[in-house]
């Protein structure tokens, strides 16, 4: 069984500051890494492969430097990888990204199982997995906590439903988004790094897609528009208290009483 894992390159830190005067983002030494949640998806695929065999393919979308995450996936044990990249994909929102990825997936073959991380650390929407599943016309289950059994035509999973834990069987082909801690992700291996350093990374661009209609990709395929970005409001309505521990603790107690908390 071949498994496809969707991965994304994200900034190494979420500490991005906005210059309050110019409104420009400051990015000092921002490096990139694989979205941490994707490590769990990749590990899940590797665990399944150990039992069932088959190939693990990874797909990512991004600028040319996003190739690095494919290399990283190779170091963990992925067999094949593709980067979906085109200048025409610039400015894609969730919908356009999901559509672009679904086109890329079709280009990579037929898969019984597609795995995604729960969300990314930069976009934080957790929407691309389900939207891709919709575009691929396959069912999905989000927040998978455990793979219980892989059957010939289905997989039994445990999923998190806030107040309950449910066990469900889902027919192939399907897409699962896995929760963190489903399996402890392995570290990239130096041996694999050497062994895969010349392995090909397939490049997929708009011209390779079945649907080449430019209007469906990038900015033009994005129904949402970022009208503006601005720094979060700072709460100006605040007091600062200084003094000795004794004074301060009395003041807090009095305030809590005034506010009817004690």
């Amino acid at each position, binding site marked *: 069984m071949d498994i496809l894992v969707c991965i994304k390159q994200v900034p190494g830190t*979420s*500490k*991005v500051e906005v210059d309050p005067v110019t*409104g*420009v983002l400051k*990015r000092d030494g*921002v490096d990139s890494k694989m979205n941490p949640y994707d490590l769990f998806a990749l590990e899940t695929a590797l665990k399944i492969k150990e039992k069932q065999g088959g190939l693990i393919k990874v797909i990512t979308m*991004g*600028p040319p430097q996003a190739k690095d995450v494919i290399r990283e996936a190779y170091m963990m044990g992925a067999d094949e990888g593709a980067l979906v*990249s*085109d*200048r025409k994909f*610039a*400015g894609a929102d*969730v919908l356009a990204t*999901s559509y672009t990825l679904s086109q890329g997936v079709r280009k990579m073959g037929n898969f019984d199982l597609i795995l995604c991380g729960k969300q990314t*650390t*930069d976009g934080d*929407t*957790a929407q*691309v997995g*389900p*939207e891709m599943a*919709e575009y691929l016309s396959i*069912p*999905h289950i*989000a927040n998978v906590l455990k793979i219980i059994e892989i059957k010939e035509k289905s997989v039994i999973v445990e999923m998190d*439903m*806030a*107040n*309950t*834990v*449910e*066990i*469900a*069987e889902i027919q192939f082909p399907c897409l699962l988004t896995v929760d963190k801690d489903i399996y402890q992700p392995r570290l990239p291996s130096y041996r694999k790094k050497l062994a895969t350093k010349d392995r090909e990374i397939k490049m997929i661009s708009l011209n390779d897609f079945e649907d080449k209609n430019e*209007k469906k990709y990038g*900015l*033009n395929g994005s129904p*949402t*528009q*970022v009208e*503006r970005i*601005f720094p*979060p409001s700072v*709460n100006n309505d*605040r*007091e600062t208290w*200084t*003094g*000795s*521990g*004794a004074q*301060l*603790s009395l*003041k807090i*107690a009095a305030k*809590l009483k005034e506010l009817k*908390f*004690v």
Partner: protein
Amino acid sequence: MSKLICNQEKVNESNVEELIKVCPFNAIEYNEGKIEINAGCKMCKICVKKGPDGVMEFIETEEIKVDKSLWKGIGVYVDHVEGVIHPVTMELIGKARELAAVVNFPVYCVFIGSNIKEKAKELLHYGVDEVFVYDFEELKDFRIEPYTAAFEDFVNKVKPSSLLVGATTIGRSLAPRVAARFRTGLTADCTMLEMKENTDLVQIRPAFGGNIMAQILCPNTRPQMSTVRYKVMNAPERQCAPTGKITICDIDRKKLASNIEVLKVTKKEAEDNISDAEVIVAVGRALKSEKDMAMIQELADLLGAQIAGTRPTIEAGWINAKKQIGLSGRTVKPKLIIALGISGAVQFTAGMNSSERIFAVNKDENASIFNVAHYGIVGDIYEIVPQLIENIKNQGAEYCVR
């Protein structure tokens, strides 16, 4: 088609570096004397606004506009498990009513499940105009295909202009599916929503881990969709007299087929959920050892509070991981939160900064927690907390004597 273009003739050695630097996504490249935009571009247009004058330009062309007058009303997805309605639903109804008032829209609910007709009546106490109920056995468990089909049916039938969905486990799985089906926009985890006169929904959400806010519009497609986390909006008061009506909907049963079978449902053990807490005492890195949790516990008990923590205290194993506040933990909105020895990294504050009253104690007067605190107390928790406990106890004693 709208696009970003570069007026190459205005690029020169003196401004090229400035231009490349202005892009927060490293999406501007200078190759062989030409500026190129790579796939990393998020179309934030910062390069147009803040880059060297006139170099980057955004060309907007007329788009095929949706006929907005055909889409009326604001729909709220009724989040529930086995008919028990999640309180985020009432919060969204409250917000929907505010938004609807601006453009004189009705407020609708869509309630999808099994054996829920009776439970739908409760919604009429919150000022909903019409509740659309899809009550079928196939909808007993949340399964993505039949739920999406019922939701789709509702949208086609009612044509709501905006849809609000709770960012719960179910909502986060269902809303994107529906959005993709209608090829429309969905904005996750909105913290503010406003309605424009032309029925465009202004959606504001934190981006980049809460470091900046993004204001998002969905001007050319309908319905416009947003998810909102629990405890972000305010629920209206329950009215005694019900208003509005319930409409039982029919759907082609074939559309409710699913490739998913739920085999077993296990209730999670009831546990204190910090998202529901009214009072929280949160501790951070300033706590020196696990035994000091005793004083924190004592303070929490006096205030009837739950204890929560920042990531370091969770990683140290002093506090259960489910009690973590922040982007990688829970979002809380208590009436009172006391942050003890917490520096206030955005990853933490993003999960608590909408609390009603925020007290923060920190030794460092420049700690960023003071940017969100209403009462910033510059001091050492080891001096303040024990005395505070005594003071509260004494106040209690005084009260008893009287």
